[in-house]
């Protein structure tokens, strides 16, 4: 549970960049469906790349609790998939109606 809270904090710290990038893609292509898809695919990678460039040292916060970078990244991607699938379903439903 303690570790999940650390994973969750890391995930939260990546959401802003992920969502901004995903919204930008949806707006630029005028395709709403790209937003949820991007939050599960390109968004997390852009966000993790941004963190790697600007806040690489913050990974030590997690290392000191026994959490590796690869674990943070995998959990981050997993945590983006569930809301991404729900959002995709909602967008598809809206488009169908």
């Amino acid at each position, binding site marked *: 549970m303690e570790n999940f809270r650390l994973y969750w*904090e890391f995930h939260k710290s990546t959401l802003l960049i992920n969502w901004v990038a995903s919204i930008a893609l949806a707006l630029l292509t005028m395709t709403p469906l790209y937003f949820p898809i991007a939050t599960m695919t390109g968004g997390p990678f852009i966000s993790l790349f941004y963190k790697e460039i600007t*806040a690489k040292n913050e*990974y*030590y*916060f997690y290392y*000191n*609790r026994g959490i590796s970078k690869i674990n943070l990244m995998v959990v981050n991607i997993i945590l983006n998939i569930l809301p991404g699938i729900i959002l995709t379903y909602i967008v598809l439903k809206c488009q169908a109606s």
Partner: protein
Amino acid sequence: MSSLLETDSILKSYGDIQVLTDIYLKCETGDIIGMLGRNGSGKSTLLKILFGTLTADTKFIRIDGKFLATPYKTKNELCFLPQHDFLPKHLKTDKAIELYLGKEAVESFFNDKTLTKLKNSKVSELSGGELRYLEIKLLLNTDSKFVLLDEPFNGVSPLLVGYIKSLIIESSKTKGIILTDHDYNNVLDVANRYCLIYDGGIKTITNKQELVKWGYVPATKF
């Protein structure tokens, strides 16, 4: 309970440059090892290898007889203070403490002349010295058996340096501590064992004159 960290056969090179050549180091609970060395001698490299975030050409690290390939992945064995700030900037200080030490530890953690006013501040709002002090106190309050401190006195005011030294001495009752800093006077003051990284190897230092002998400080210093 006393713990023992043993490292042996650490070799590290960057390209053709051999930075560390067969390092052997032993640290027990109660030890405060002051590691000195010129810029680029490999002090931070050694600490990162010990922690497990940097690979070595060869290494052998054991804690209490247990071989650890990537020490940091085994919780509560080792903590590491890197040279640069590591607390996530978006967090509030009390949240960071809670994540590490638990909710019940937050009040007592901030019951401290320096930190009491910083409770509930964002990490990004702290000064460099305040943040360094907070990070050091946080790591020394974890259950880790060993703490590696890379430049703990860097950018810290003399008053806070005094507090940090007190924390290190107090924590050494239950931990082994390895620290490195160019502020060698404070390192010599707080440590109870000393070593110098010279030419890729570790030299045990038993008196200050040896620092002159190995060319770490000018002869006029002592």
